[in-house]
């Protein structure tokens, strides 16, 4: 469950919390309205998603899952709402980076995969241990956004239910970089800074919107939308002197 939203110098922090290893009692891992409000803040330039302690997220809470499975209809509704939350992260108009230490399992891995970039600590662990229980909320949604190597690797993880370490996750294309465990969050922030520093916020938002929100549209519609965003941006920056930072 996301227990904290804060912004420092433009970089937002979403903290997954609840015990030594954050687990999800329900697929609804954040308050939708709170997440929307956070992502819409004008001073937000980028987001780091991080676990409160030594772990990113261990996935579904076994007890919560057991009781949820007794009411499949309610679980189905909750899973849809969980997917909608992942979609909010994936279509954010600022870049989102998962900073992953320790366990990143099941629904926790799905949250990480909904982010645009993933930085892992050298002790991180990835997998879908509960794959056999058929509770993979967002996978179908965010998989198409991944590079093809990562898409193929996920099938392996889901089918085998095996756990892998950070180096193998890097080789499989599931994470973008592996750093010392103590440097994960700093590396995630540096990644964001490299993407947004020195760029006007409206410029970053236009490009992000075209890429992330465009990916759910039919191609012709996405192309028309890109043209509209381009014209809007170019006319705003008229005069060639650039735009206000």
């Amino acid at each position, binding site marked *: 469950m996301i227990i904290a939203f804060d912004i420092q110098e433009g970089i937002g922090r979403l903290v997954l919390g609840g015990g030594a290893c954050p687990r999800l009692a329900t697929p609804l891992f954040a308050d939708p309205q709170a997440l929307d409000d956070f992502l819409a803040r004008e001073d937000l330039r980028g987001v780091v998603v991080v676990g409160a302690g030594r772990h990113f997220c261990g996935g579904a809470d076994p007890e919560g899952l057991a009781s949820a499975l007794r009411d499949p209809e309610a679980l189905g509704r909750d899973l849809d709402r969980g997917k909608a939350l992942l979609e909010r992260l994936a279509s954010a108009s600022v870049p989102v980076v998962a900073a992953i230490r320790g366990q990143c399992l099941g629904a926790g891995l799905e949250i990480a995969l909904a982010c645009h970039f993933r930085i892992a600590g050298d002790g991180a662990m990835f997998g879908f241990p509960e794959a056999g229980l058929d509770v993979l909320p967002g996978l179908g949604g965010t998989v198409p*956004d991944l590079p093809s190597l990562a898409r193929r690797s996920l099938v392996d993880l889901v089918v085998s239910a095996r756990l892998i370490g950070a180096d193998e996750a890097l080789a499989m294309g599931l994470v973008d970089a592996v750093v010392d465990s103590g440097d994960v969050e700093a590396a995630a922030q540096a990644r964001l800074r490299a*993407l947004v520093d020195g760029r006007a916020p409206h410029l970053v938002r236009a*490009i992000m919107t075209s890429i992330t929100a*465009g*990916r759910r549209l039919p191609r012709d519609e996405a*192309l028309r939308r890109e*043209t*509209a965003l*381009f014209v809007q*941006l170019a006319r705003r920056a008229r005069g060639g002197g650039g735009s206000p930072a």
Partner: protein
Amino acid sequence: MTPTLHVDGPIATLVLDAPPGNPTDRAFFSALTALTRDTLPALDVVGLVIHGRGRHFSSGADVEELRARVTSGPADAVHRELGAHAAALSALEALPYPVVAAIDGCCLGSGLELALACRARIATRRALLGLPEVTFDLMPGCGGTVRLPACVGVGPALDLALTGRFVDADEAHRMGLVDALVSAGDLLPAARRMARFLSGGREVR
């Protein structure tokens, strides 16, 4: 830049023909619009290879020309014209035979967007690819934000579009942006082999 079309066998060739930069300017898109409407769909070929004359594929748009064009005149006219550019690339993508980009040197901005509208991309080790629009306070406007993520994934696409950085041939190959790397001397033959391969062995009528 007006491209030249050569049809002298089962694989036609479209040459971006204004070295050194082979810019994808207004004249290029007008010519491409006409070609994709009338000439190219009617060709009796099994594939088309696009390459640049000289050292480069294409350096993309002339930014100052583009900016002047986009900021003068009524918004809806500008919108129509840029929409027509994107439509020309979609028409290229929809041709009934495979189109292959043969990339040497620079392949930047709308030059890369042209290559992304092709079915496959073959490059030499001297190739340099990127979407530098952001460094001019602009964004890709000819399908780059749509076709690049479809090709390499959202994360790598965001990286290229937001930083404007160039990737060399090896990195482009690793990320799946380029399908194969070949020596400069083998670029056009390899691109023709790729087109033939993608055509599934179809023969001219």
